[in-house]
């Protein structure tokens, strides 16, 4: 196999299934590449709750109770199950420490990182910071810290995020998602031909990668 398979992933940082789906995709990717496959991955912006304030005062439970009208006990049970499922993928979700926030600036940062050829590392750093480390991913200074941790220029990040340099890129991704009919994330587009919705089993991702590679 020599053809490079292009994978476009629509996701949101504040999406627990997106991080799980990312891991399941990576499991498939590892096998695919070990067998000689070549893949190019690009993340695209999708905001699940764009009306969320940057400095949301409260926990994840508070957010879901107040914004979605779900009973607190049901939310706690759901998050407990989500934590167990994430653990099965090697992820240590910590919903007690999680700081709910607006993710538009995080998406701008992902576009900034893409321009520097570092988008995959930035995506991983943002997901881990949000779900596992209780880091804030909505404020520019906090995002600049995370960017610096993967070797990006902190001052350049602050400038780009302050001046909304990549806001148009975020909006373009969102418009593309609407055009594609994407209503939930994660959503994977393979070679502009195949669509995979949700945190599928790695075998599904591996099958579609092999199918795309064989499709000339």
């Amino acid at each position, binding site marked *: 196999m020599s053809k490079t398979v292009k994978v476009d992933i629509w996701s*949101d940082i504040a*999406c*627990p*299934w*997106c991080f*799980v*789906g990312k891991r399941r995709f990576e499991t498939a990717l590892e096998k695919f590449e070990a067998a000689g496959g070549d893949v190019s991955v690009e993340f695209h912006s999708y905001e*699940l*709750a764009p009306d969320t304030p940057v400095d949301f005062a409260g926990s994840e439970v508070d957010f879901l109770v107040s*914004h*979605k009208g779900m009973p607190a006990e049901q939310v706690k049970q*759901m998050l407990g*199950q*989500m934590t*167990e*499922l994430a653990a099965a993928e090697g992820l240590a979700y910590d919903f007690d420490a999680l700081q709910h926030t607006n993710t538009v600036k995080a998406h701008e940062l992902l576009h900034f990182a893409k321009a520097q050829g570092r988008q995959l590392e930035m995506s991983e750093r943002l997901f881990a910071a949000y779900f596992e480390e209780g880091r804030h991913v909505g404020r520019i200074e906090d995002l600049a810290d995370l960017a610096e941790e993967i070797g990006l220029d902190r001052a350049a990040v602050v400038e780009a995020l302050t001046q909304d340099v990549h806001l148009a890129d975020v909006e373009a991704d969102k418009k593309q998602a609407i055009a*594609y*009919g*994407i*209503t*939930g*994330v*994660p*959503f994977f*587009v*393979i070679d*502009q*031909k*195949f*669509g*995979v*919705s*949700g*945190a*599928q*089993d790695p075998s*599904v991702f591996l*099958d*579609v990668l092999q*199918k795309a590679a064989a499709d000339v």
Partner: protein
Amino acid sequence: MTGPFEMVGEDAPLCEDGVCALPTPPDDDLASD
């Protein structure tokens, strides 16, 4: 659900409109029969 693409895979958990699908209880299938 997405017109331009040949969809692959069965229904899988995702997040939609700010709400994420409830995880499926892991023991349901094993408990049957």
